[in-house]
């Protein structure tokens, strides 16, 4: 099994308690978590990335133990080899597109320079056709370009799994179809392991992966 997740967490919000109890086991390269907002999709993704520590359960990706409550394993986010594409892309506003793409390649105290460009950065800039805007800042580029930058930044680190949080929600409808096709083509070409969360049935249909439906913190339907 390439992905084997079982997490339980009790979260205390300002006005409500939320119980998350999700199991996802799949050997497919495209996993889709589908459900309405507030169902616990993002929490699940955050637990896989190591941004949220569940109370119990385990997270195994490609046979690697990222989290296992019983065994006392909780790998920090930075060691998990997981990429996370945030809903609004979370591009660093003070860095150019090229610097954003290269951000995860060096882990020191300095950001990549504006001029010196790593060969890996150039490759991802070419792959995602970002050459024209490589020196632009995120505030100056379009929504579709932002998504490509976020993908390039995520993929440059060569992760074992790419987590995408509502990747098409921030795009206007015309662009959505094109970006869906782009993501699918990229996934097939590079054989990426994807885990996508969405509330949009059109995404589920287009991504055509192993789909899990979540409602109120639980998986209610898995084919």
């Amino acid at each position, binding site marked *: 099994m390439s992905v084997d997740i079982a997490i339980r967490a009790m979260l205390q919000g300002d006005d409500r308690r939320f119980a998350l109890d999700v199991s996802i086991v799949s050997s497919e390269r495209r996993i889709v978590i589908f459900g309405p907002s507030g169902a616990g999709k993002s929490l699940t993704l955050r637990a896989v*990335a*190591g*941004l949220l520590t569940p109370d119990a359960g385990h997270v195994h990706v490609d046979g690697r133990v990222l989290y296992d409550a019983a065994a006392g394993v909780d790998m*920090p*986010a*930075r*060691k*998990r080899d*997981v*990429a*996370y594409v*945030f809903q*609004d892309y*979370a591009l*660093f*506003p*003070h860095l150019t597109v090229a610097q954003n793409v290269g*951000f*995860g390649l060096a*882990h*020191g*105290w*300095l*950001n990549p320079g504006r001029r010196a460009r790593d060969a890996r950065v150039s490759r991802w800039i070419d792959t995602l056709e970002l050459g024209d805007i490589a020196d632009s*800042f*995120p*505030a*100056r580029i379009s929504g579709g370009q932002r998504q490509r930058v976020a993908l390039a*930044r995520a993929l440059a*680190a060569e992760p074992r799994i790419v987590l995408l949080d509502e990747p098409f929600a921030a795009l206007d409808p015309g662009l959505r179809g094109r970006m869906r096709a782009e993501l699918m083509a990229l996934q097939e070409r590079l054989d990426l392991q994807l885990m996508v969360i969405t509330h949009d049935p059109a995404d589920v249909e287009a991504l055509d992966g192993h789909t899990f439906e979540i409602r109120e913190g639980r998986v209610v339907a898995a084919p």
Partner: protein
Amino acid sequence: MADVWVPLALSLKVALWATAINLVLGVLAGFGLSRWRSPAREVVDSILTLPLVLPPTVLGYYLLVLLGRRGVFGSWLDRMGIELVFTWQGAVIASTLVAFPLVQKAARAAFEAVDPQLESAARVLGLREAAIFFRVSLPLAARGITAGALLAFARALGEFGATLMIAGNLPGRTQTLSVAIYAAVQAGDDRTAAIMVGVTSVTCVAALLLAGWLSPNPPGRGRR
């Protein structure tokens, strides 16, 4: 004119040192307070803000009690051969204390305005917390911190009460511009006083204009 340049140079030296020290202490305190999740946070913030509201003479008195030759730290410093009372270094400590809350408050607000998601993104991309601070949080907060530092510089430049209490009024050694103005007026030298008042006012207005131009950080706009 030498009457003006000597205290002006001393004031600039003291204010620059005080600002530099506050850039380290104020930024650390501001960052700590912005990330600390504890009910004690606002209490600590209030205590750190006290120098903004206490009369500078009260602060100067505290400093004397602490750093004077018979003071708590002073007697220990005395044995080490370090003398702070009636020295320009003493004036730096007074100015640093008085201006500290301006940097701390600005830094805390600037760090709180940094989108936590950007720090999460850096974490997933493999960075340690210290690297996230230097590569994401600090650059995004830099504008607000700089504005606070300019205010602190202007405040340190004008420091009078606490400086007089701990560093005294020794011309050429501890007599800063604001203390020299008081001495000139006392001595009836109105012309020198007027020149020094003009120089102080212009410098402070320039610092405030720069601070206003730098803050607040326009939301959602990239910087070049």
